[in-house]
């Protein structure tokens, strides 16, 4: 086999020439180019769905986030008067439903709230009308309490403190007993005098 003839038709190769001659019948016969369409409509391929899916997911997330933050920013100032009213529960009932911010006494919880950065917060703060709670007399009720069992393991300091406390209580108890006896004696004397009168 002569490779040159196979590559660039130089030289001779009877066998290849015979094959060429036989296959000549199938060779391309020059024909006219096809009639071109008047106008070519370019149909764009559909873009990958993943892009749209990602776009829709992102848009949905952005919308939800926007709604959430909008609601949060709108709701945050509305909570402020409630907290301020809590700080003024001990003050007398205010007739003015609307007061300026400067007139609010600088109570500690209010100051903390005031220092918070607020967006779109109006300068005039509305405060709910609050009624001062009725002060009821304190009733002290002594309950009988059983002495707590001393933990078995006490440190030296705890033991010392406990002893001192018990000593103080016993002294106080004895003093109270003396006072009570004296009061009883005075009341007994007055009662005798009253009866005598």
């Amino acid at each position, binding site marked *: 086999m002569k490779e040159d003839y196979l590559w660039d038709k130089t030289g001779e190769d009877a*066998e290849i020439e015979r094959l060429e001659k036989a296959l000549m019948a199938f060779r391309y016969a020059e024909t006219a180019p096809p009639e071109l369409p008047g106008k070519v409509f370019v149909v764009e391929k559909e873009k990958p769905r993943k892009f749209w899916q990602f776009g829709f997911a992102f848009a949905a997330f952005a919308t939800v986030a926007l709604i959430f933050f909008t609601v949060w920013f709108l709701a945050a100032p509305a909570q402020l008067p409630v907290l301020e009213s809590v700080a003024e529960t001990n003050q007398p009932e205010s007739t003015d439903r609307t007061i300026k911010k400067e007139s609010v006494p600088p109570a500690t919880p209010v100051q903390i709230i005031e220092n918070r950065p607020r967006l779109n917060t109006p300068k005039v703060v509305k405060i709910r009308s609050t009624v001062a709670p009725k002060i009821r007399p304190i009733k002290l009720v002594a309950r009988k309490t059983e002495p707590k069992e001393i933990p078995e393991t006490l440190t030296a300091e705890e033991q010392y403190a406990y002893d001192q406390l018990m000593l103080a209580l016993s002294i106080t108890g004895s003093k109270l007993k003396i006072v009570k006896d004296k009061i009883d004696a005075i009341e007994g004397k007055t009662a005798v005098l009253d009866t005598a009168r």
Partner: protein
Amino acid sequence: MPDREMTGNMFFFAKSEQTATAAQKVPAQVLIVERITAGDAEAFGELYRMFAAMIHGIILARVPRDEVDDIVQEVFLSAYKNLHTLREKAAVGAWLAMIARNCAAEFYRRERPTEELSETLREKENPQAEAREILKTIRSLPDTYRETLVLRLVEGMTGAEIAEQTGLTPESVRVNLHRGMKLLREKLGIKE
């Protein structure tokens, strides 16, 4: 003139010379594609004449001979419609070859069942029985070999022309020709 300025000018001339050389080396295919894109219908005819034989050979290596001409036309029409998608204009030959292979594959996907002609009738209609047998043997070879062999033996292209038009390297074409010819000889029972 200062040395530096001279050097700069020399560099400029050298560069412009390089640009001119590069411009000359721009293949005619690129210019044709640009003209077609600009709406020159005559340029499409030039492209057709330039690559029709190659496309014919590629399709002939795959589909029945009666269908080849129609598919060649189909390939060029498809190329014309999709020319805007061609990025590398210099590789228009390889691009057309790819379209031709796809169209040949599409032919078999949409092929309808046909009745085979009897051997006697075939012989009467096709006097080149030997040529048909050879072509049939070539078609039975692997894709890379049969395509190159059809372009060489049927279309009469040289190895260099095949490489230039299909976008293959000359080395690949040489190997395909050599190995394909060896296989063909074996199948046809030809002794070297």
